[in-house]
């Protein structure tokens, strides 16, 4: 179980009314609400995608949205928004249903979170179950089982 993913930081939504910018903003909202990050961190993420492209589409249907550590990040954070319909990250070559937002305070301290996340995302059965989950409880069940 990834400690930072819990009932507060997980969300499931329909997604058909979202574009990639609003999807990232919504995915990051719990981190803003619990004061892990400032909303300017979300702006940084969106700007880096606009500037550099959809490189944060790290696997099929998976985005890991993040920007560089700066003053707008107060502590390490991770959140996940699952959209039931795919939302295109920039273009239709990059459809995404699992929107992870990662906040790091420096270049080292979040590496164990990445390790945990990689363990999850390289487990094809777990990823499939996350893609099929349509409630926060179902996602929690996948995370607990993993």
């Amino acid at each position, binding site marked *: 179980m990834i400690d930072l993913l819990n009932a507060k930081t997980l969300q499931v939504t329909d997604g058909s009314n979202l574009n990639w910018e609003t999807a990232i903003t919504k995915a990051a909202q719990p981190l803003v609400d619990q004061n892990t990050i400032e909303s300017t961190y979300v702006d940084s993420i969106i700007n*880096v995608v606009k500037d*550099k*492209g*959809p*490189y*944060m*589409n*790290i*696997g*099929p249907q*998976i985005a*890991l949205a*993040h*920007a*560089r*550590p700066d003053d707008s990040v107060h502590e390490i954070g991770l959140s996940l928004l699952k959209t039931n319909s795919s939302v295109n990250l920039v273009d239709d070559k990059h459809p995404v249903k699992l929107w992870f937002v*990662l906040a*790091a305070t420096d*270049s080292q301290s*979040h*590496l164990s979170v*990445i*390790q945990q*996340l*990689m363990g999850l*995302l*390289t487990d094809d059965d777990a990823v499939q179950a996350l893609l099929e989950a349509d409630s926060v409880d179902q996602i929690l069940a996948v995370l607990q089982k993993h």
Partner: protein
Amino acid sequence: MKILAVCQSGLGSSFMVQMNIQAVLKAENVDTSDIQVDHSDVGSATADSADYFFVESTLADAVSSLPKDRVILLKTLIDKKETKQHVNDILDKEGIEYTAE
């Protein structure tokens, strides 16, 4: 030999690729005493930083200053099979022994 995983920020994605490369080397019983694997952001990677660079393919333009024959463009960062194929190609090229599964 040094392999460097590169991504835009040098924070998350490149470390994921680094972990996958290390997992492949371990699974294939490669002697890693002379093999270094690290990760970095695209801005700090120069031709001298490493012998091979693993880069997500949408960053191809950003790494155009790196020697093309030493740059491996990955379609899917977290795909272990894809990473493994590229690692094996490098090991073959460098004449480093490994256990094929």
